[in-house]
């Protein structure tokens, strides 16, 4: 088990896959398939994670304690009870916020240089 650093900045910059997985979990706990669907939806289908990438990323996030496996299991009548749910940890939330801030800073710089327009 890897001891997680307490400073969220030490994790940055995140890889796109990690950032998208953390973003997908920002709304609440999800299982692997739901994470994959959320990532695909939030990127307009540009990022479609394969099983290897998704679970490799989840494994590393678990080891870094940025996410945790939820003890809750779905109602067997509603979903497959074997599904494993994941949620953001406190550190994970800080890290994804920090990364989002970092991106926001980059976007502000790009906007200042008129590389991108202002949001509608």
């Amino acid at each position, binding site marked *: 088990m890897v001891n997680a650093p307490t400073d969220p900045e030490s*994790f940055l910059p995140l890889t796109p896959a990690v950032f998208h997985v953390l973003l997908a979990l920002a709304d609440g706990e999800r299982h692997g398939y739901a994470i994959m669907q959320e990532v695909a939806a939030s990127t307009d289908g540009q990022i479609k994670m394969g*099983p290897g990438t998704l679970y490799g990323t989840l494994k*590393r996030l678990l*080891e870094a304690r*940025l996410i945790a496996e939820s003890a809750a299991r779905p109602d067997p009548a509603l979903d*497959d009870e074997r599904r494993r749910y994941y949620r953001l940890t406190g550190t994970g939330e800080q890290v994804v916020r920090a990364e989002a801030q970092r991106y926001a800073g980059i976007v502000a710089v790009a906007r200042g240089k008129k590389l991108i327009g202002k949001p509608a």
Partner: protein
Amino acid sequence: MSRPAPSRAIALSEYVFQRLLRAYPRAHRDAYGEAMAQLFRDQCRDAWAESARWGLAKLWLRVLPDVVNTSIWEHLANLNPRKNMGNQLANLFRFYATAKLATFGTVFVIVFLLTVCVGTVITFILPESYASTARIKVERDDAILAAETGNPVAYDPYFLQTTFELMQSDLILNRVITNLNLTMVWGKKYYGGNILKTSEAMQILKGRISLMPIRNTKLISITAYDEEKNEAAAIANAVAEAYSAHRVESNRERIAAIEQQYQAEEKLLQADARQLSTNELAQHQAAVQTLLTKIESARLAARMPDESMVEIVDTAEPGRLPVKPNKPLNICISAILGMGLGTVAGGVAVLGISLLRRSPPKPAV
């Protein structure tokens, strides 16, 4: 989810994916193998709902590189930096052996299956062709006479070769085209009903017949190929008949020519008999005698049945099964080619791993 999920296609994909999971380290497989398989199953259903088999194919195109990349990644991540140098080297060796084997196996199987599938599909798409063979026995004209008169004739080493060339010549094949009306038949079949020129039909016909001598005999086999079994048989028989008719006609023309020559010589002899010297008269008489012998011989040959010169030993019958494409052979060749290509592609992939060994990637988090 508008389409019914075909359990077989998805089940097969799941089975292959389960096999591919072996490329991952055991610990990773134990922890996430089931979840990965479940995710893949869900993706298969989505892909099928999206665009059926094409959707599954697109999914595989995404998943296969993902499996190769992430399995290598997981093996690299398994290397524990806290272990001593001996353990690290052993781990490295185990990793590369496993990764190489897994990568080689994966790439080999994919390339092999792709090649066999493509080969099989092409084999089944190719138009079928039937073959029919007629066999003829050919004799030299003078050989017939020799048999009749008992006089030996010299061996002609060029006879069979000449016969071959003659049978493939425009002279014979024009008869075949006319007799079978191939300009119209093939025009309808291949050119939307436009009547072909004889030269065009000739070109097609020449590509569809094959002549073979049968060793140590006077037999020649004439094989014709066509998409229709009856037409293949008709072409082979028509070539045999056209050659036979040509030989009979040639013999008749030869007799007529000798007879003309004889009549001219005899007329000359009667007109100038008084003015010729004894020697000249003797020479003319000898010439007339020779011509008479020739005429007698030619007539004798003409009296022989036509089959004596060219005998159609076996008429061509429509084949029961197509000879082209040879499906089992083509699939075997595809399999052999697939093994070769798979080995090469697997080797290239393993080489890629060796290059990665020099600069292992850093962990993502």
